[in-house]
C-alpha cells in the first residue's frame, strides 16, 4: 500500500481488498459497540420502571390517538403554511439578491444572511412577545409559522439562487436571441429549470421547517409536540410519549424525502417515456 494517502483519496477512491476488509471490521466493531450502548440504556429504563404498563397502556385508547392525530394535523398545517411562506419570502430575497440594481442586491444579501444567522427561537419570541405589543394580534398558527418561515427564508433563498446559477448561461443567450426580455427569460426559461435542480434541497429545508414547528408549544398552538406535552402531564409518561412523537416526526420526514425523490424524477428535464 502506498503512503501519502490524503483524506480525499480515502473518500473518493474505490477501496482495494485490504481496505475493504478493514472497513468491514470497523463497521462490525462499531455496530457492536452501539448495540451494547443501546442495551445499557434500555436496562436503565427498565430499572427505572419505564416499561411498566401504566406508561404504555393509554396508547391502547382511541381518544389518545385522536388527540395525537389532532396534534399531527396541527403540525402538518403549521408546516405547510410555514413552507409556503418560506418559499415566497425566500424567492423575494433571491430575486433581490440577483438583481442588477445595487441597493436591492445589497438588501437581498443582508436579509438572506440575517435570517440565516438568527436562531428560530428569537424570531418566535419576537412574534410572541413583541408583535402583540404593537397591537397586532396574529392567530396562533401564524405566530409559529411566520417566524419559522422567516428563519428558513434565507436558507431557501440560497438554495434557489444556487439553482439559478446552475442553469447554463447558453439558455439565457438563446432566449435573448429569440427576442425575450430579461423578465421573460427569467420567468419562462431560467427559473423553471432552476427549481427542478433544487427540489431535493428544498425538501431538506422543509424537513427543517417541520422540526422548527415544534416551537409551537411556546405560542400554545396545538401541534404534535404541544399535544405530546399534554399527554405527558396527564399520564406522567415522559419517555413513552416522546418516543412515540419522535417516531412520528421521523415518519413525516421520511415521507417528505420519498416525495422529493419522486418529484425530482418527474421534474427532470427528460420525461418518463410514455407519459
Amino acid at each position, binding site marked *: 500500500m502506498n503512503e501519502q494517502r490524503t483524506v480525499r483519496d480515502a473518500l473518493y477512491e474505490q477501496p482495494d481488498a485490504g481496505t475493504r476488509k478493514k472497513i468491514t471490521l470497523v463497521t462490525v466493531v462499531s455496530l457492536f459497540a452501539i448495540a451494547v450502548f443501546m442495551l445499557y440504556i434500555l436496562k436503565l429504563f427498565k430499572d427505572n420502571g419505564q416499561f411498566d404498563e401504566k406508561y404504555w397502556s393509554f396508547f391502547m385508547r382511541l381518544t389518545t390517538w385522536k388527540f395525537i392525530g389532532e396534534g399531527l394535523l396541527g403540525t402538518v398545517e403549521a408546516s405547510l403554511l410555514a413552507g409556503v411562506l418560506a418559499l415566497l419570502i425566500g424567492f423575494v430575497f433571491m430575486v433581490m439578491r440577483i438583481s442588477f440594481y445595487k441597493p436591492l442586491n445589497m438588501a437581498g444579501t443582508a436579509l438572506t444572511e440575517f435570517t440565516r444567522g438568527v436562531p428560530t427561537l428569537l424570531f418566535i419570541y419576537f412574534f410572541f412577545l413583541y408583535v402583540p405589543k404593537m397591537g397586532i394580534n396574529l392567530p396562533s398558527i401564524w405566530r409559529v409559522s411566520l417566524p419559522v418561515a422567516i428563519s428558513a427564508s434565507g436558507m431557501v433563498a440560497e438554495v434557489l439562487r444556487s439553482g439559478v446559477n446552475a442553469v447554463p448561461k*447558453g439558455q439565457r443567450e*438563446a432566449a*435573448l*436571441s429569440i*427576442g425575450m426580455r430579461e423578465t*421573460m427569460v427569467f420567468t419562462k426559461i431560467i427559473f423553471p*429549470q432552476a427549481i427542478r435542480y433544487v427540489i431535493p434541497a428544498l425538501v431538506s429545508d422543509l424537513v427543517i421547517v417541520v422540526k422548527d414547528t415544534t416551537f409551537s408549544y411556546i405560542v400554545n398552538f396545538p401541534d404534535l409536540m404541544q399535544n405530546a406535552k399534554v399527554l405527558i402531564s396527564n399520564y406522567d409518561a415522559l419517555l413513552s410519549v416522546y418516543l412515540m412523537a419522535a417516531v412520528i416526526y421521523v415518519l413525516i420526514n421520511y415521507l417528505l424525502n420519498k416525495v422529493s425523490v419522486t418529484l425530482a424524477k418527474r421534474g427532470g*428535464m*427528460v*420525461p418518463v417515456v410514455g407519459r
Partner: protein
Amino acid sequence: MNSEVNVTEKDSDKTIVELKHVEKYYGELHALKDINLQVKKGEVVVLIGPSGSGKSTLCRTINRLESINSGEILIEGKKLPEGGAELAGLRAEIGMVFQSFNLFAHKSILDNVCMGPVDVLHRPKEEVKKEAMELLKRVGVDSQAQKMPAQLSGGQQQRAAIARSLAMHPKVMLFDEPTSALDPEMIQEVLDVMIELANEGMTMIVVTHEMNFARRVANRVVFMADGAIVEENTPEEFFTAPKSERAKEFLESINRH
C-alpha cells in the same frame, strides 16, 4: 434543390448588416480591432480564423449579446439599439445558432420552436404549432417533436435549434461554429440544412472551419486574426491562393490535421 444557384442573380443591393470601425475590449484585451464589414441581402459570409481571433465575439456583437466600446453596428441601415424593448425586438429578427445548441432543456422540441412566435410575437398558438411542425419536418426532426432536447442526438438538437431560429422569420442568421460540437457523422446532416437555407436566399454569417461548406455556398470568406479582419476573399481564391501571409499559415496549420 439546385445547389449551383448563381449568387449574382439575387437582389443583393440591400445591406442587412453593417459594422463600421467596431472596437471591443475585454478589460485589457483588444478583442475586436477596427472591424468593417458589410453583408448584403442573401449573402453568405463565412468567418474563419485561429482560435481566439475574435470570430465568436464579432458574431455576438451583431445581436448585442456582447456590447461594443466604439464604432457602429447597423441592421438594415438602423443603429443597433442599446437595450430595452427595442433591442429585444431587433434580436427577434436576428437568428442565432450556437455551438452547444442551447435548446431550452425543460421544453419539448415543439415547444422550443413555438416559444418565440407565441410568447414574443404573440401569434396564435394553433397557427404557430402548424408552422413549427412544418419547420421541424424541413430540418428532418418532426418525428422527435414531442421529445425533450436531452433525448435527441447532437445533430438532431442542432437542426431543431435551426428550426427554432427560423420560426422567427429572421432577416439574417448568425451561426457560431454550429458543427464543432458534433460527431463527424452528424456534421453533414446539419450542413445540409444550412446549405439548403443558403440556397433559398437566407442571409447568413457563419463561423466555421468546414471548407466544403464555405466552398459550396459562401459568397465571401472573411479571415480574422488577433481581433482584426486580415483578408476578405472569394472562397475559391481564399482556399487555393490566399493573399495574406497569416491566412497562408493558418490554412497550412489546419491542412496538417
